[in-house]
Protein backbone atom coordinates (compact mmCIF):
# COMPACT_ATOMS: atom_id res chain seq x y z
CA UNK A 1 0.00 0.00 0.00
CA UNK A 2 2.69 2.41 1.06
CA UNK A 3 4.85 1.37 -1.88
CA UNK A 4 2.01 2.08 -4.32
CA UNK A 5 1.48 5.49 -2.74
CA UNK A 6 5.20 6.19 -2.90
CA UNK A 7 5.49 5.25 -6.57
CA UNK A 8 2.42 7.32 -7.40
CA UNK A 9 3.76 10.38 -5.60
CA UNK A 10 7.21 9.91 -7.08
CA UNK A 11 5.71 9.58 -10.55
CA UNK A 12 3.76 12.81 -10.18
CA UNK A 13 6.82 14.55 -8.73
CA UNK A 14 9.06 13.47 -11.62
CA UNK A 15 6.51 14.20 -14.32
CA UNK A 16 5.85 17.67 -12.98
CA UNK A 17 9.59 18.25 -12.54
CA UNK A 18 10.05 17.39 -16.22
CA UNK A 19 7.24 19.78 -17.11
CA UNK A 20 8.95 22.53 -15.09
CA UNK A 21 11.80 22.56 -17.58
CA UNK A 22 9.81 21.58 -20.66
CA UNK A 23 6.99 24.12 -20.49
CA UNK A 24 7.30 27.12 -22.81
CA UNK A 25 5.07 29.17 -20.61
CA UNK A 26 6.67 30.36 -17.34
CA UNK A 27 3.34 30.21 -15.50
CA UNK A 28 2.86 26.55 -16.34
CA UNK A 29 6.43 25.89 -15.22
CA UNK A 30 5.77 27.64 -11.92
CA UNK A 31 2.56 25.67 -11.39
CA UNK A 32 4.36 22.43 -12.06
CA UNK A 33 7.03 23.42 -9.56
CA UNK A 34 4.30 23.93 -6.97
CA UNK A 35 3.01 20.45 -7.71
CA UNK A 36 6.54 19.06 -7.28
CA UNK A 37 6.83 20.76 -3.91
CA UNK A 38 3.53 19.31 -2.78
CA UNK A 39 4.67 15.84 -3.86
CA UNK A 40 7.85 16.35 -1.81
CA UNK A 41 5.66 17.26 1.16
CA UNK A 42 3.76 13.99 0.70
CA UNK A 43 7.08 12.14 0.68
CA UNK A 44 8.02 13.87 3.96
CA UNK A 45 4.76 12.70 5.48
CA UNK A 46 5.54 9.16 4.39
CA UNK A 47 8.89 9.51 6.15
CA UNK A 48 6.94 10.46 9.30
CA UNK A 49 8.05 14.09 9.25
CA UNK A 50 4.70 15.93 9.22
CA UNK A 51 6.32 19.11 10.53
CA UNK A 52 8.75 19.21 7.62
CA UNK A 53 5.86 18.61 5.23
CA UNK A 54 3.83 21.51 6.60
CA UNK A 55 6.85 23.82 6.52
CA UNK A 56 7.65 22.68 2.98
CA UNK A 57 4.19 23.66 1.77
CA UNK A 58 4.07 26.86 3.82
CA UNK A 59 7.47 28.21 2.83
CA UNK A 60 8.04 26.88 -0.68
CA UNK A 61 4.56 26.47 -2.13
CA UNK A 62 2.88 29.17 -0.05
CA UNK A 63 5.45 31.94 -0.01
CA UNK A 64 8.36 31.52 -2.41
CA UNK A 65 6.38 30.31 -5.40
CA UNK A 66 3.78 33.02 -4.85
CA UNK A 67 6.59 35.56 -5.10
CA UNK A 68 7.93 33.87 -8.23
CA UNK A 69 4.48 34.08 -9.84
CA UNK A 70 4.27 37.68 -8.64
CA UNK A 71 7.49 38.47 -10.52
CA UNK A 72 6.23 36.66 -13.62
CA UNK A 73 3.09 38.78 -13.45
CA UNK A 74 4.93 42.05 -12.94
CA UNK A 75 7.39 41.45 -15.77
CA UNK A 76 4.60 39.98 -17.92
CA UNK A 77 6.82 37.22 -19.26
CA UNK A 78 5.39 35.53 -22.32
CA UNK A 79 6.22 32.21 -23.86
CA UNK A 80 9.86 31.61 -24.66
CA UNK A 81 10.71 30.51 -28.18
CA UNK A 82 12.64 27.37 -28.90
CA UNK A 83 16.34 27.84 -28.23
CA UNK A 84 18.61 26.96 -31.13
CA UNK A 85 21.71 26.16 -29.07
CA UNK A 86 22.03 22.46 -29.85
CA UNK A 87 25.65 22.24 -28.62
CA UNK A 88 24.66 23.47 -25.18
CA UNK A 89 21.80 21.02 -25.09
CA UNK A 90 24.11 18.15 -25.99
CA UNK A 91 26.54 19.15 -23.24
CA UNK A 92 23.71 19.35 -20.75
CA UNK A 93 22.47 15.92 -21.79
CA UNK A 94 25.88 14.35 -21.38
CA UNK A 95 26.30 15.99 -17.99
CA UNK A 96 22.88 14.78 -16.86
CA UNK A 97 23.61 11.23 -17.98
CA UNK A 98 26.94 11.28 -16.10
CA UNK A 99 25.20 12.59 -12.97
CA UNK A 100 22.61 9.85 -13.26
CA UNK A 101 25.31 7.18 -13.46
CA UNK A 102 27.17 8.69 -10.52
CA UNK A 103 24.05 8.88 -8.34
CA UNK A 104 23.15 5.34 -9.25
CA UNK A 105 26.62 4.14 -8.29
CA UNK A 106 26.45 5.94 -4.95
CA UNK A 107 22.98 4.59 -4.26
CA UNK A 108 24.12 1.04 -4.97
CA UNK A 109 27.26 1.30 -2.85
CA UNK A 110 25.80 3.22 0.06
CA UNK A 111 24.05 1.55 2.95
CA UNK A 112 22.05 4.44 4.27
CA UNK A 113 18.72 2.64 4.33
CA UNK A 114 18.12 0.39 7.27
CA UNK A 115 20.71 1.96 9.57
CA UNK A 116 19.17 2.53 12.95
CA UNK A 117 19.32 5.76 14.91
CA UNK A 118 17.99 7.28 18.08
CA UNK A 119 14.87 8.63 16.38
CA UNK A 120 12.53 5.75 15.62
CA UNK A 121 8.91 5.70 14.49
CA UNK A 122 7.80 4.77 18.00
CA UNK A 123 9.66 7.74 19.47
CA UNK A 124 8.07 10.07 16.92
CA UNK A 125 4.63 8.64 17.69
CA UNK A 126 4.98 8.98 21.45
CA UNK A 127 6.87 12.24 21.58
CA UNK A 128 5.77 14.22 18.53
CA UNK A 129 7.85 15.18 15.55
CA UNK A 130 7.65 18.93 16.16
CA UNK A 131 8.90 18.55 19.72
CA UNK A 132 11.81 16.37 18.57
CA UNK A 133 12.87 18.89 15.93
CA UNK A 134 12.56 21.77 18.39
CA UNK A 135 14.61 19.98 21.04
CA UNK A 136 17.32 19.03 18.55
CA UNK A 137 17.47 22.52 17.10
CA UNK A 138 17.81 24.34 20.40
CA UNK A 139 20.14 21.91 22.18
CA UNK A 140 22.37 19.80 19.94
CA UNK A 141 22.37 22.02 16.88
CA UNK A 142 22.20 25.43 18.53
CA UNK A 143 25.31 26.83 16.86
CA UNK A 144 24.36 25.89 13.27
CA UNK A 145 20.88 27.20 13.97
CA UNK A 146 22.22 30.54 15.18
CA UNK A 147 24.61 30.79 12.24
CA UNK A 148 21.73 30.18 9.85
CA UNK A 149 19.61 32.82 11.55
CA UNK A 150 22.43 35.38 11.39
CA UNK A 151 22.83 34.57 7.70
CA UNK A 152 19.13 35.23 7.16
CA UNK A 153 19.34 38.45 9.16
CA UNK A 154 22.21 39.64 6.98
CA UNK A 155 20.14 38.85 3.89
CA UNK A 156 17.19 40.84 5.27
CA UNK A 157 19.42 43.83 6.07
CA UNK A 158 20.89 43.59 2.58
CA UNK A 159 17.42 43.60 1.01
CA UNK A 160 16.46 46.66 3.04
CA UNK A 161 19.62 48.49 2.02
CA UNK A 162 19.17 47.66 -1.66
CA UNK A 163 15.55 48.77 -1.74
CA UNK A 164 16.09 51.98 0.25
CA UNK A 165 16.83 55.06 -1.84
CA UNK A 166 19.00 56.91 0.67
CA UNK A 167 20.68 54.89 3.39
Amino acid at each position, binding site marked *: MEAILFYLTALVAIVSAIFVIKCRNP*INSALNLVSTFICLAVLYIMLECP*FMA*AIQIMVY*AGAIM*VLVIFVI*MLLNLGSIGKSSNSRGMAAGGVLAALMLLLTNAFLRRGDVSGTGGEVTSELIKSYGHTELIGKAMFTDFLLPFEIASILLLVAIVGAVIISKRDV
Partner: protein
Amino acid sequence: MTPEVLTLSNTPLLYTAAMLVKVVVAFVVTLLIVAYATWAERKIIGRMQTRCGPTMTGYKGLLQPIADGLKLFFKEDIIPAQAHWFAFIIAPMMILAPAFISISVIPFGSDYQFTYDGILYSVPLQVTDLNIGVLFIMAMAGLGVYGIVLGGLASNNKYSLIGGIRSTAQMVSYELAAGLSIIAIFMLSETLSLRGIVSAQQLPLWGLEFLPSWVHNWYIFTQPLAFGLFFISSIAEINRTPFDLPEAETELVSGFCTEYSSMKYALFFMGEYANMITISAIGATLFLGGWDGPFFSWMNFLFKVFAFMFVFIWIRATFPRLRYDQLMFLGWKIMLPLALANVVLTGFAVLLWQ
Protein backbone atom coordinates in the same frame (compact mmCIF):
# COMPACT_ATOMS: atom_id res chain seq x y z
CA MET B 1 -16.49 2.27 32.10
CA THR B 2 -14.10 4.17 29.91
CA PRO B 3 -15.13 4.22 26.26
CA GLU B 4 -12.92 2.64 23.65
CA VAL B 5 -11.68 5.00 20.97
CA LEU B 6 -12.69 3.87 17.52
CA THR B 7 -9.60 3.10 15.45
CA LEU B 8 -8.86 1.31 12.23
CA SER B 9 -7.28 -1.61 14.11
CA ASN B 10 -10.04 -2.49 16.58
CA THR B 11 -13.12 -2.12 14.35
CA PRO B 12 -12.16 -1.52 10.72
CA LEU B 13 -15.69 -1.54 9.33
CA LEU B 14 -17.22 0.70 11.95
CA TYR B 15 -14.27 3.05 11.76
CA THR B 16 -14.55 3.40 7.99
CA ALA B 17 -18.28 4.01 8.24
CA ALA B 18 -17.83 6.64 10.96
CA MET B 19 -15.08 8.32 8.96
CA LEU B 20 -17.20 8.46 5.81
CA VAL B 21 -20.15 9.86 7.74
CA LYS B 22 -17.93 12.54 9.30
CA VAL B 23 -16.44 13.53 5.95
CA VAL B 24 -19.83 13.71 4.24
CA VAL B 25 -21.45 15.63 7.09
CA ALA B 26 -18.61 18.15 7.32
CA PHE B 27 -18.62 18.65 3.57
CA VAL B 28 -22.39 18.93 3.15
CA VAL B 29 -22.82 21.23 6.13
CA THR B 30 -20.07 23.50 4.83
CA LEU B 31 -21.68 23.60 1.39
CA LEU B 32 -25.06 24.40 2.92
CA ILE B 33 -23.56 27.18 5.00
CA VAL B 34 -21.84 28.50 1.86
CA ALA B 35 -25.16 28.60 0.03
CA TYR B 36 -27.08 30.21 2.84
CA ALA B 37 -24.28 32.61 3.75
CA THR B 38 -24.97 34.36 0.44
CA TRP B 39 -28.64 34.64 1.40
CA ALA B 40 -27.79 35.82 4.93
CA GLU B 41 -25.31 38.35 3.60
CA ARG B 42 -27.82 39.88 1.19
CA LYS B 43 -30.53 39.87 3.83
CA ILE B 44 -28.38 41.36 6.61
CA ILE B 45 -26.76 44.01 4.43
CA GLY B 46 -30.19 44.81 3.03
CA ARG B 47 -31.61 45.37 6.49
CA MET B 48 -28.62 47.44 7.52
CA GLN B 49 -29.18 49.68 4.50
CA THR B 50 -32.97 49.76 5.13
CA ARG B 51 -33.74 47.54 2.17
CA CYS B 52 -35.42 44.14 2.22
CA GLY B 53 -32.89 41.93 0.46
CA PRO B 54 -34.21 38.94 -1.50
CA THR B 55 -37.91 38.33 -0.77
CA MET B 56 -39.52 36.83 -3.86
CA THR B 57 -37.99 33.37 -4.33
CA GLY B 58 -39.54 31.13 -1.72
CA TYR B 59 -40.48 32.11 1.80
CA LYS B 60 -38.48 35.26 2.72
CA GLY B 61 -36.31 34.58 -0.33
CA LEU B 62 -34.96 31.37 1.16
CA LEU B 63 -34.73 29.67 -2.24
CA GLN B 64 -32.62 32.50 -3.64
CA PRO B 65 -29.22 30.68 -3.34
CA ILE B 66 -30.62 27.71 -5.27
CA ALA B 67 -32.07 29.98 -7.94
CA ASP B 68 -28.72 31.81 -8.22
CA GLY B 69 -26.90 28.50 -8.49
CA LEU B 70 -29.21 27.27 -11.24
CA LYS B 71 -28.88 30.54 -13.12
CA LEU B 72 -25.09 30.42 -13.04
CA PHE B 73 -25.06 26.74 -13.90
CA PHE B 74 -26.99 27.26 -17.13
CA LYS B 75 -25.03 30.29 -18.31
CA GLU B 76 -22.61 30.04 -21.19
CA ASP B 77 -19.08 29.23 -20.09
CA ILE B 78 -16.68 31.61 -21.83
CA ILE B 79 -12.92 31.19 -21.92
CA PRO B 80 -11.21 34.25 -23.44
CA ALA B 81 -9.32 33.51 -26.64
CA GLN B 82 -5.95 34.76 -25.37
CA ALA B 83 -6.22 33.19 -21.90
CA HIS B 84 -3.86 30.51 -20.57
CA TRP B 85 -6.60 27.90 -20.68
CA PHE B 86 -5.05 25.46 -18.19
CA ALA B 87 -4.46 28.02 -15.47
CA PHE B 88 -7.80 29.63 -16.27
CA ILE B 89 -9.66 26.38 -15.64
CA ILE B 90 -7.87 25.23 -12.51
CA ALA B 91 -7.83 28.64 -10.78
CA PRO B 92 -11.41 28.46 -9.41
CA MET B 93 -10.76 24.93 -8.15
CA MET B 94 -7.57 26.01 -6.43
CA ILE B 95 -9.42 28.62 -4.42
CA LEU B 96 -12.13 26.22 -3.28
CA ALA B 97 -10.10 23.10 -2.50
CA PRO B 98 -7.79 24.47 0.28
CA ALA B 99 -10.76 25.99 2.10
CA PHE B 100 -12.55 22.65 2.22
CA ILE B 101 -9.36 20.76 3.10
CA SER B 102 -8.77 23.01 6.11
CA ILE B 103 -12.19 22.07 7.49
CA SER B 104 -10.95 18.49 7.88
CA VAL B 105 -8.68 19.26 10.85
CA ILE B 106 -11.15 21.40 12.78
CA PRO B 107 -12.85 19.72 15.75
CA PHE B 108 -16.55 20.52 15.53
CA GLY B 109 -17.74 18.77 18.66
CA SER B 110 -16.78 16.79 21.74
CA ASP B 111 -16.45 13.01 21.57
CA TYR B 112 -19.60 11.22 20.46
CA GLN B 113 -20.22 8.02 22.41
CA PHE B 114 -22.34 5.05 21.37
CA THR B 115 -22.69 1.39 22.28
CA TYR B 116 -22.21 -1.33 19.68
CA ASP B 117 -22.14 -5.02 20.54
CA GLY B 118 -22.08 -4.14 24.21
CA ILE B 119 -18.88 -2.12 23.93
CA LEU B 120 -18.91 1.62 24.50
CA TYR B 121 -17.09 3.40 21.69
CA SER B 122 -16.20 7.06 21.38
CA VAL B 123 -15.71 8.91 18.12
CA PRO B 124 -14.00 12.31 18.08
CA LEU B 125 -16.15 14.74 16.09
CA GLN B 126 -13.31 15.80 13.85
CA VAL B 127 -12.39 14.35 10.49
CA THR B 128 -8.75 13.93 11.44
CA ASP B 129 -6.59 15.13 14.29
CA LEU B 130 -3.18 16.01 12.89
CA ASN B 131 -0.59 16.84 15.50
CA ILE B 132 0.49 19.69 13.24
CA GLY B 133 -3.07 20.96 12.78
CA VAL B 134 -2.33 24.66 13.05
CA LEU B 135 0.61 24.46 10.64
CA PHE B 136 -1.54 22.47 8.23
CA ILE B 137 -4.15 25.20 8.25
CA MET B 138 -1.53 27.87 7.66
CA ALA B 139 -0.09 25.86 4.78
CA MET B 140 -3.53 25.52 3.21
CA ALA B 141 -4.15 29.25 3.65
CA GLY B 142 -0.90 29.81 1.77
CA LEU B 143 -2.10 27.62 -1.09
CA GLY B 144 -5.38 29.52 -1.25
CA VAL B 145 -3.58 32.49 -2.81
CA TYR B 146 -3.01 30.57 -6.03
CA GLY B 147 -6.63 30.58 -7.06
CA ILE B 148 -6.84 34.35 -7.11
CA VAL B 149 -3.37 34.89 -8.54
CA LEU B 150 -3.85 32.43 -11.37
CA GLY B 151 -7.34 33.65 -12.08
CA GLY B 152 -5.99 37.18 -12.45
CA LEU B 153 -2.98 36.12 -14.46
CA ALA B 154 -4.63 33.65 -16.80
CA SER B 155 -7.53 35.89 -17.83
CA ASN B 156 -5.29 38.08 -19.99
CA ASN B 157 -7.15 41.18 -18.88
CA LYS B 158 -5.49 44.19 -17.32
CA TYR B 159 -8.07 44.56 -14.55
CA SER B 160 -7.76 40.91 -13.64
CA LEU B 161 -3.99 41.22 -13.64
CA ILE B 162 -4.03 44.21 -11.31
CA GLY B 163 -6.47 42.37 -9.06
CA GLY B 164 -4.19 39.36 -8.99
CA ILE B 165 -1.08 41.42 -8.23
CA ARG B 166 -2.88 43.23 -5.44
CA SER B 167 -4.09 40.03 -3.88
CA THR B 168 -0.63 38.43 -3.97
CA ALA B 169 0.99 41.30 -2.14
CA GLN B 170 -1.90 41.57 0.28
CA MET B 171 -2.09 37.91 1.16
CA VAL B 172 1.65 37.43 1.57
CA SER B 173 1.88 40.38 3.92
CA TYR B 174 -1.18 39.57 6.01
CA GLU B 175 -0.38 35.89 6.30
CA LEU B 176 2.73 36.87 8.24
CA ALA B 177 0.73 38.83 10.80
CA ALA B 178 -1.90 36.08 11.06
CA GLY B 179 0.74 33.39 11.49
CA LEU B 180 2.64 35.33 14.13
CA SER B 181 -0.53 36.04 16.10
CA ILE B 182 -1.33 32.32 16.10
CA ILE B 183 2.19 31.50 17.34
CA ALA B 184 1.30 33.19 20.63
CA ILE B 185 -1.61 30.75 20.96
CA PHE B 186 0.38 27.61 20.64
CA MET B 187 3.08 28.96 22.91
CA LEU B 188 0.38 28.85 25.59
CA SER B 189 -1.25 25.57 24.62
CA GLU B 190 2.10 23.79 24.01
CA THR B 191 0.56 21.75 21.22
CA LEU B 192 -0.10 22.21 17.52
CA SER B 193 -3.08 19.90 17.43
CA LEU B 194 -6.37 21.76 17.26
CA ARG B 195 -7.94 19.17 19.51
CA GLY B 196 -5.25 19.81 22.09
CA ILE B 197 -5.78 23.55 21.81
CA VAL B 198 -9.51 23.15 22.43
CA SER B 199 -8.97 20.94 25.48
CA ALA B 200 -6.34 23.38 26.82
CA GLN B 201 -9.04 26.05 26.71
CA GLN B 202 -11.33 24.10 29.03
CA LEU B 203 -9.17 24.66 32.09
CA PRO B 204 -10.24 27.38 34.56
CA LEU B 205 -9.46 30.91 33.43
CA TRP B 206 -5.79 31.83 34.05
CA GLY B 207 -5.56 28.84 36.37
CA LEU B 208 -7.69 30.61 38.98
CA GLU B 209 -9.57 27.91 40.87
CA PHE B 210 -11.97 30.18 42.78
CA LEU B 211 -13.82 31.37 39.67
CA PRO B 212 -17.18 29.73 38.85
CA SER B 213 -16.69 26.49 36.94
CA TRP B 214 -18.26 27.74 33.71
CA VAL B 215 -15.54 30.39 33.24
CA HIS B 216 -13.07 28.71 30.95
CA ASN B 217 -9.62 29.66 29.76
CA TRP B 218 -10.58 30.83 26.29
CA TYR B 219 -7.56 32.37 24.66
CA ILE B 220 -9.44 35.52 23.73
CA PHE B 221 -9.10 36.57 27.40
CA THR B 222 -5.40 35.72 27.60
CA GLN B 223 -4.51 36.96 24.12
CA PRO B 224 -6.82 39.86 23.21
CA LEU B 225 -4.14 41.49 21.04
CA ALA B 226 -3.51 38.27 19.13
CA PHE B 227 -7.24 37.90 18.61
CA GLY B 228 -7.53 41.42 17.17
CA LEU B 229 -4.56 40.88 14.87
CA PHE B 230 -5.87 37.51 13.75
CA PHE B 231 -9.29 38.93 13.08
CA ILE B 232 -8.06 41.87 11.00
CA SER B 233 -5.58 39.84 9.01
CA SER B 234 -8.14 37.12 8.40
CA ILE B 235 -10.48 39.69 6.87
CA ALA B 236 -7.58 40.69 4.64
CA GLU B 237 -6.84 37.08 3.77
CA ILE B 238 -10.34 36.29 2.65
CA ASN B 239 -10.48 39.54 0.63
CA ARG B 240 -13.49 41.09 2.24
CA THR B 241 -14.32 44.74 2.78
CA PRO B 242 -12.46 46.84 3.92
CA PHE B 243 -9.61 44.81 2.34
CA ASP B 244 -11.33 43.74 -0.87
CA LEU B 245 -8.87 45.52 -3.14
CA PRO B 246 -8.36 42.51 -5.45
CA GLU B 247 -11.96 42.86 -6.61
CA ALA B 248 -12.57 46.55 -5.96
CA GLU B 249 -15.51 47.02 -8.29
CA THR B 250 -15.26 50.79 -8.46
CA GLU B 251 -11.69 50.60 -9.80
CA LEU B 252 -11.21 47.17 -11.36
CA VAL B 253 -14.60 46.16 -12.82
CA SER B 254 -14.64 43.05 -10.67
CA GLY B 255 -10.94 42.38 -10.20
CA PHE B 256 -9.46 38.94 -10.67
CA CYS B 257 -12.75 37.33 -11.70
CA THR B 258 -13.68 39.85 -14.41
CA GLU B 259 -13.39 37.33 -17.25
CA TYR B 260 -15.07 34.46 -15.48
CA SER B 261 -18.58 33.35 -16.22
CA SER B 262 -20.97 30.54 -15.45
CA MET B 263 -19.94 27.83 -12.99
CA LYS B 264 -16.35 29.05 -12.76
CA TYR B 265 -17.56 32.39 -11.46
CA ALA B 266 -19.83 30.52 -9.06
CA LEU B 267 -16.82 28.57 -7.83
CA PHE B 268 -14.97 31.82 -7.07
CA PHE B 269 -18.01 33.04 -5.23
CA MET B 270 -18.30 29.81 -3.27
CA GLY B 271 -14.58 29.95 -2.58
CA GLU B 272 -14.96 33.34 -0.94
CA TYR B 273 -17.68 32.08 1.38
CA ALA B 274 -15.94 28.76 2.04
CA ASN B 275 -12.84 30.69 3.06
CA MET B 276 -15.00 32.83 5.31
CA ILE B 277 -16.37 29.71 7.01
CA THR B 278 -12.91 28.21 7.38
CA ILE B 279 -11.47 31.36 8.91
CA SER B 280 -14.46 31.66 11.25
CA ALA B 281 -14.04 28.05 12.32
CA ILE B 282 -10.32 28.58 12.93
CA GLY B 283 -10.99 31.73 14.93
CA ALA B 284 -13.66 29.95 16.98
CA THR B 285 -11.33 27.03 17.64
CA LEU B 286 -8.22 29.00 18.50
CA PHE B 287 -9.68 31.88 20.47
CA LEU B 288 -13.24 31.09 21.54
CA GLY B 289 -12.78 27.63 22.98
CA GLY B 290 -13.96 25.60 19.98
CA TRP B 291 -17.01 23.54 20.89
CA ASP B 292 -16.86 24.57 24.54
CA GLY B 293 -20.04 26.23 25.81
CA PRO B 294 -23.49 25.82 27.34
CA PHE B 295 -25.36 23.91 24.58
CA PHE B 296 -24.57 20.71 22.69
CA SER B 297 -20.97 20.82 21.55
CA TRP B 298 -21.59 21.11 17.80
CA MET B 299 -24.27 23.74 18.44
CA ASN B 300 -21.78 25.90 20.36
CA PHE B 301 -19.31 25.55 17.54
CA LEU B 302 -21.81 26.48 14.82
CA PHE B 303 -23.05 29.38 16.94
CA LYS B 304 -19.51 30.76 17.22
CA VAL B 305 -18.90 30.30 13.50
CA PHE B 306 -22.12 32.15 12.69
CA ALA B 307 -21.20 34.93 15.11
CA PHE B 308 -17.89 35.40 13.31
CA MET B 309 -19.60 35.41 9.94
CA PHE B 310 -22.15 37.91 11.12
CA VAL B 311 -19.36 40.26 12.18
CA PHE B 312 -17.68 39.83 8.78
CA ILE B 313 -20.93 40.77 7.06
CA TRP B 314 -21.52 43.61 9.47
CA ILE B 315 -18.07 45.03 8.71
CA ARG B 316 -18.78 44.80 5.00
CA ALA B 317 -21.94 46.85 5.46
CA THR B 318 -20.15 49.45 7.57
CA PHE B 319 -16.62 50.20 6.44
CA PRO B 320 -15.30 51.89 3.29
CA ARG B 321 -12.47 50.29 1.37
CA LEU B 322 -8.87 51.07 2.32
CA ARG B 323 -6.45 52.69 -0.10
CA TYR B 324 -3.70 50.35 -1.27
CA ASP B 325 -0.82 52.12 0.50
CA GLN B 326 -2.88 52.28 3.70
CA LEU B 327 -3.34 48.54 3.47
CA MET B 328 0.39 47.91 3.09
CA PHE B 329 1.20 50.39 5.85
CA LEU B 330 -1.23 48.68 8.22
CA GLY B 331 0.08 45.23 7.38
CA TRP B 332 3.81 45.78 7.58
CA LYS B 333 4.29 48.72 9.92
CA ILE B 334 1.55 48.19 12.50
CA MET B 335 0.31 44.60 12.55
CA LEU B 336 3.63 42.82 12.01
CA PRO B 337 5.54 44.66 14.81
CA LEU B 338 2.56 44.27 17.14
CA ALA B 339 2.38 40.55 16.43
CA LEU B 340 6.12 40.18 17.02
CA ALA B 341 5.91 42.14 20.27
CA ASN B 342 3.00 39.93 21.33
CA VAL B 343 5.07 36.80 20.71
CA VAL B 344 7.97 38.18 22.77
CA LEU B 345 5.65 39.26 25.61
CA THR B 346 3.93 35.88 25.63
CA GLY B 347 7.33 34.22 25.78
CA PHE B 348 8.27 36.24 28.86
CA ALA B 349 4.90 35.58 30.47
CA VAL B 350 5.16 31.84 29.89
CA LEU B 351 8.68 31.85 31.33
CA LEU B 352 7.60 33.78 34.44
CA TRP B 353 4.48 31.63 34.90
CA GLN B 354 6.49 28.47 35.05
